[in-house]
């Protein structure tokens, strides 16, 4: 599709979002902020903030949720938009009113399972989701999931789980999915307002409400955090995995939880260089299998480090990190600067549970589930959704129970990673056998379900799927356990006929050529280089979309070899000398209104702060996003001004969740008038 940006002709794909089309054409700064002309680029890629705003046919739109159309005239918004001078005088229509037993906000794993459960019990259910496809964030996940095969499709890739769940939804006769429909408000008179397909204002009266609205990404306060090129790991996944654009060339990732680790992996798969992951914590907080996998790819992890600046002309060109002392203060003399065009923020998620709080305040029957209830894996959200459905049925007067089994399983799936047990190296013989590089207790069992001889079993103290796998029995090197393992933590090994040599079968999820006879760098579990090996064979498992590469290595490496390096250390090191300026008070806290740390501290010193609402006097939280990003950041900033964050009254919650044009509220398009 052809479109134009500031008069320049560009090409994009049908069906992609405008923001992605712009980034694919090399545009990172979309508009200029009205206060100071600062460049504005993609940030949430989720329709929540308004930083990606551009003018389309003269009107401001969020480019991340505006589908590209042939011939679109897209322009930079400089300052404030002008309201068009003339307008058609069209009749208005009141919102159409729908009714249902239960309204489910969000069609992610928990929302879908809640809706399906309620549907099976005979309730009429409407599921509203702001995206076009059901599945929530699963749609963005290209990796295989952990958890149990029986309850949550472990070993299957996220976007495929989304399709399976979407099918369950379609097969539920009393459940209606309203896609591209944002729940814009829960009003105190028992009505939810829907912004339906971006053009219609619709009301739903419900008896019960299930809040399965997921989570939003937490942000971070550091100088340069407002430059185009600093964005959330979730936003990155949207661009790279959903819209299939190469959003960056070189990234630095802040946060070593599962989100950061997975984002790093997705980046590598998209051919993007990952210069490192940074975390202020002394240890990786995500699954060790994820971290080990990333290290094997050749990505350094900088623990006890923090990002201290992002700099560049109108976009990120470099980022600087520094180790921190015991008090968390950066040690500037040990700073390292990296050449990058992107800094991904993966410092955690915050529940989107405002509607739950509203509904509770109004005395409605309400349950929250999934990330909206507690940040955890999608695997537990699927069970959580079923439980939420049962709980709602009970609230609405049906005599059903929540099976204890479900609760127990969900608690296991929610578990934080447990103990690390380093087991003795297995003896490698002439017969292939699996070798487990999985040393940390996590809820996961796919390997036990694929072996046709049942030779892989979990064993350990917990007696649950947290236990580690062990091999005992027959192995014919079918490779299924290697291909199914979400952690890429199982290999096969045997001694070869050549003296002193061995063959190892390694999983690979990269589109590398690797012709027989080519040399590869083989690493141990934590990325330590063992040396070069020779490719013997490459097999492709369609069901798991995974390659199995057989590599010949010295026999001593056979129990150790865990993966193939894809990124060379020379590509990712810091600049010889750190290159940064450090003005932490310049960091932007409220992105919509561009309020800095300095302005907040100045206000707090003149105005004793007891209440986050006081900061609205300097417009903190008054912008398009309504404080979704900054409300969680401000209390920490205020510590500097001597304010105890615990003493602060929270910012008040107000509808609407998204901005809606008056023509849509008046349903002026109902008569077929085109916008």
């Amino acid at each position, binding site marked *: 599709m052809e479109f134009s940006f500031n008069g320049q002709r560009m090409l994009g794909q049908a069906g992609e979002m405008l923001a992605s089309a712009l980034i694919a054409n090399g545009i990172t700064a979309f508009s200029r902020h*009205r206060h100071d002309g600062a460049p504005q680029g993609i940030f949430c890629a989720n329709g929540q903030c308004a930083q990606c705003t551009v003018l389309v046919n003269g*009107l*401001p739109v969020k480019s991340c949720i505006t589908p590209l159309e042939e011939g679109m005239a897209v322009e930079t918004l400089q*300052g*404030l*938009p*002008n*309201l*068009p*001078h*003339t*307008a*058609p*005088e*069209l009749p*208005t229509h*009141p*919102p159409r009113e729908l009714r249902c037993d239960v309204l489910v906000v969000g069609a992610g794993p928990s929302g879908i399972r809640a809706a399906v459960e309620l549907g099976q019990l005979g309730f009429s259910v409407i599921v509203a989701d702001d995206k076009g496809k059901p599945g929530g964030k699963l749609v963005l996940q290209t990796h295989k999931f952990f958890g149990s095969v029986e309850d949550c499709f472990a070993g299957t890739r996220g976007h495929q789980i989304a399709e399976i769940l979407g099918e369950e939804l379609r097969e539920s006769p009393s459940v209606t999915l309203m896609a591209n429909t944002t729940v814009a*408000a829960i*009003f*105190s*008179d028992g*009505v939810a*307002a829907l912004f339906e397909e971006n053009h219609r*204002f619709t*009301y739903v009266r419900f008896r019960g409400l299930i809040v399965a609205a997921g989570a939003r990404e937490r942000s971070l306060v550091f100088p340069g955090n407002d430059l185009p090129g600093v964005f959330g790991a979730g936003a990155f996944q949207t661009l790279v995995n959903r819209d299939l654009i190469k959003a960056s060339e070189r990234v630095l990732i802040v946060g070593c939880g599962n989100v950061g680790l997975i984002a790093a992996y997705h980046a590598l798969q998209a051919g993007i260089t990952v210069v490192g992951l940074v975390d202020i914590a002394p240890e990786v907080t995500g699954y060790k299998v994820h971290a080990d996998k990333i290290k094997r790819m050749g990505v350094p992890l900088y623990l006890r480090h923090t990002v201290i600046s992002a700099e560049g002309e109108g976009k990120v060109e470099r980022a600087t990190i520094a180790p921190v002392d015991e008090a968390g203060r950066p040690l500037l003399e040990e700073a390292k600067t990296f050449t990058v065009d992107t800094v991904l923020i993966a410092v955690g998620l915050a529940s989107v549970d405002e509607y739950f709080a*509203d509904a509770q*305040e*109004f005395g409605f029957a309400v349950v929250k589930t999934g990330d909206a209830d507690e940040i955890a894996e999608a695997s537990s959200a699927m069970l959580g959704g079923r439980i939420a459905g049962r709980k709602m049925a009970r609230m609405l007067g049906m005599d059903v129970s929540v099976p204890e089994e479900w609760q127990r399983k969900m608690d296991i799936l929610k578990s934080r990673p447990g103990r690390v047990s380093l087991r003795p190296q297995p003896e490698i013989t002439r017969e292939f056998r699996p070798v487990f590089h999985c040393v940390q207790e996590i809820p996961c069992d796919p390997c036990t379900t694929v072996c046709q001889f049942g030779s892989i079993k979990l064993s350990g103290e917990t007696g649950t799927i947290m236990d580690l796998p062990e091999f005992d029995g027959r192995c014919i090197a079918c490779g299924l356990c290697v291909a199914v393992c979400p952690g890429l933590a199982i290999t096969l090994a045997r001694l070869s006929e050549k003296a002193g040599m061995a063959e190892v079968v390694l999983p690979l999820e990269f589109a590398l050529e690797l012709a027989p006879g080519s040399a590869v760098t083989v690493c141990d579990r934590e990325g330590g280089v063992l040396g070069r090996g020779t490719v013997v064979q490459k097999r492709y498992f369609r069901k798991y979309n995974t390659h199995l590469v057989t590599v010949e290595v010295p026999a001593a490496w056979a129990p150790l070899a865990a993966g193939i390096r894809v990124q060379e250390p020379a590509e990712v090191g810091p600049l010889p000398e750190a290159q940064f300026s450090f003005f932490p008070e310049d960091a932007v806290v409220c992105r919509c209104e561009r309020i800095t740390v300095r302005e907040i501290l100045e206000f707090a010193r*003149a*105005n*004793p*702060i*007891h*209440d986050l*609402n*006081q900061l*609205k*006097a300097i*417009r903190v939280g008054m912008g*398009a996003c*309504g404080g979704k990003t900054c409300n969680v950041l401000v209390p920490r900033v205020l510590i500097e001004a001597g304010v105890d964050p615990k003493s602060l*009254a929270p910012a008040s919650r*107000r*509808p*609407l969740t998204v*901005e*809606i*044009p*008056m*023509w849509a*509220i*008046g349903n*002026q398009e109902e008569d077929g008038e085109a916008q």
Partner: protein
Amino acid sequence: MKTYDVVVIGAGSVGTILSYWLAQRGLRTAVVERNASVGRGEHRAAIGGIRATHSDPAKIKIGLRSLEFVRRLKPEFGFDVDYVEGGYLFPAYQEAIAAKLKNLLDAQKVHGLEIDWIGPEEVMELVPGIREEGLLGGTYSPRDGHLSPLKLASASYQMALAAGVDFYFHTTVTGFSVEHGRVAAVKTDGPTFSTRMVVNAAGSNAREIGLLLGTDLPVVPDAHEAGVTEPVERFFYPMVVDIEPTAESENYYFYQDPEGSVIFCITPKPKRLGATKASTSEFLPMVVPRLLRLCPRLRYLRVRRVWRGMYPGTPDDRPIVGFDGNVEGVFHAVGMCGQGLMLGPGLGQLVADRLVGATRPEDEEVFELLSPYREFTAKELLR
């Protein structure tokens, strides 16, 4: 036990700035507020219009005093509260509305207000895009304006703190001690305040405070909802008030703030009594069609947020200002009928004068007209 010369109940539109004037006059002043910070009762819900062009002489007098004070805030006190002298515009599309507005002009001019009838061309110049068909003209008062309620609250708070006022937040009044007919102490869920003077500036909670003293003040709150849009380039300055009633609503009004957002509010018919402060589904479908009919180009504006607040109403739509008849030392400054923001700054000075016994002769009329013990019969012609 804490001891003060005067305790003000309520850190809202009236109480906060009043506390500044009291401290200025040398009184040791405390403000007791049940919410977490200043202006979190109904003040936060005000959309920001400030005018002197009322039809009641007392309100005109207070309004003029408020405007005079607000104009001084930036040059004299260094507080920018986004005050813009954008005027108030009441357009008319019906002869009856035009006649009603014109009838008020003489009375308003007598009190020194700058207000006049303007023709349709002038109205369209002031609000580009307002519907031309059937427009008869309107009244326009260029010296009225709008400001940021949040910034005014913050400025008042800082001024009061600098003057030495002590604020007690999260503190709810639970009763009073009365000795020999005079107030002796204010009891709260926190400290007890020993004082000989109390001002009831409790806004929508004024009646409850009065009842603790045995005085039944006829203050009944009714709910109004408001909304704000995304910002766009400034395209009009006045507060536009359309008083033509429909079956389900009375007047509605809107203006554009200096950030560029259009802020709007409507008066539902009949009044929505009760205490709920959470938004309802009836507001947007009630107000948006009226806005789009009056000014079709507003259709392109995106509504950002909505909220609901209370108008602490009185039977004759006038504030209740004066000493309590049962308990000596208690003064009521309540029943602002949704106009606390525009009356508060002026009223604060008048009440502070009263409490130190220094009322100017020309202000006596205000206290007569707004006495708690008046008849409450004559309705204001134009609220």
